[in-house]
């Protein structure tokens, strides 16, 4: 194994299940069903800084919690979370407006192994809403760009209107120190970019397989096929890291809802090495 995923910090709070009150500062409508919330502590208490790839439990008061990856942070304890309306709780979260309250627990889990990536080429592959949990890793690399080798970002979505972070995509496209490939599964004639599943862009990616670390986040089948395509390019399974999502409820490794073979995704993940995961991904009962 190349390295261990980043160790989680000890989450703070008076009780492990008690959320800390935050307030919505701003809401950006990314797509028709997806928003990015900027939330700030409502009072003196705040969760510890999140490492790239960690997640928090966002509590929609009166409804319940949902695990949402941290997609960014700013001063004064501000957190960014990109949320898609995909259920009762996330529906409520996407309806929040500035000034509304939201509860936060976390941050939880092991994040992207940023130390293991230093000095290496980095390939970031995101499918759909897999980009938000990867954004902090990307920003970490861009803040210390010389510490890493080539940087290749491959981002796939269902259609052009499902792409998030439009402004940042433009900014990344303009940069000379990274290469961005954006592809969609289908498009109309007004789309001049690539069309095809995200794995079709791997053969064209520029990296040295022997000194590459890959961070992959998206639907499970996309991650499996991407890791397979990376293997075909010579990137060992031990150098490919994926972020799993499995029915996380307590986020503390107590309840077992997110058990995936010998791992609890909330505690041992969500970022896991593909080397250990690969045999389990093919087992339907796990």
């Amino acid at each position: 194994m190349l390295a261990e995923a980043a160790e989680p910090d000890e989450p703070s709070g008076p009780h492990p299940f008690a959320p800390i009150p935050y307030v919505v500062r701003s809401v950006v409508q990314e797509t028709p069903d997806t928003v990015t919330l900027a939330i700030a502590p409502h009072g003196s208490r705040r969760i510890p800084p999140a490492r790239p790839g960690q997640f928090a439990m966002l509590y929609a008061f009166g409804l319940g919690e949902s695990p949402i990856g941290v997609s960014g942070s700013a001063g004064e304890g501000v957190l960014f979370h990109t949320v898609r309306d995909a259920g009762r709780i996330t529906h409520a979260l996407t309806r929040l407006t500035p000034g509304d309250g939201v509860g936060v627990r976390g941050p939880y889990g092991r994040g992207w192994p940023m130390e293991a990536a230093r000095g290496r080429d980095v390939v970031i592959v995101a499918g759909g809403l897999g980009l938000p949990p990867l954004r902090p890793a990307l920003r970490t690399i861009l803040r210390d760009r010389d510490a890493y080798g080539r940087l290749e970002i491959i981002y796939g979505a269902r259609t052009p209107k499902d792409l998030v972070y439009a402004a940042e995509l433009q900014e990344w496209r303009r940069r000379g120190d990274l290469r961005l490939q954006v592809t969609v599964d289908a498009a109309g004639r007004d789309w001049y970019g690539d069309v095809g599943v995200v794995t079709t862009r791997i053969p064209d990616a520029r990296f040295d397989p022997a000194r590459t670390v890959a961070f992959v986040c998206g639907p499970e089948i996309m991650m499996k096929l991407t890791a397979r395509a990376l293997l075909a390019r010579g990137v060992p399974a031990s150098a490919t890291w994926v972020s799993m999502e499995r029915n996380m409820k307590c986020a503390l490794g107590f309840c077992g809802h997110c058990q995936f073979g010998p791992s609890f995704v909330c505690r041992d993940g969500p970022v896991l090495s593909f080397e250990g995961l690969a045999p389990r991904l093919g087992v339907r009962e796990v």
Partner: protein
Amino acid sequence: MSAPSRDLEAAIARHPFFAGLAPELVHAVSAGAEARVVAPGALIAREGTPADVFCLVVAGKIALEVGAPDRPTLTVQTLGPGEVLGWSWLIPPHRWRFDARAVKETRFLALPADALRGILADHPAWGFDVLRRLVPVLAERLENTRVQLVDLHAR
């Protein structure tokens, strides 16, 4: 048929589809081949019309489009440099299955399908070599289509 230009033959030999194959094969398929440049928006192939060329994409981008009544035209795949357009030239009735349109200015090498089929039929070893290059393209596109059917981004 006139002898192919050396530049054209060299360009075909450099293209990933033919790279490494027998020079005699490359020489043979170069006869009658053309280097074409099309403007953005130009239709390269139209569904149902004779698939009379096998296209090796050199530069630019080609969209494979599916049209359906009462629905906007949908691009289901794009092809770029190093890729090939079409296998309809090989499979009867030799008619294009999709529309192919240039997304931007695109350069490709057009190999005449009639001649190509004849060469491959007359030289089974070359035919096998070409099929060994073409089948992975088909297999990859079939797998990608299946993945699209699964809908990677479904909720």
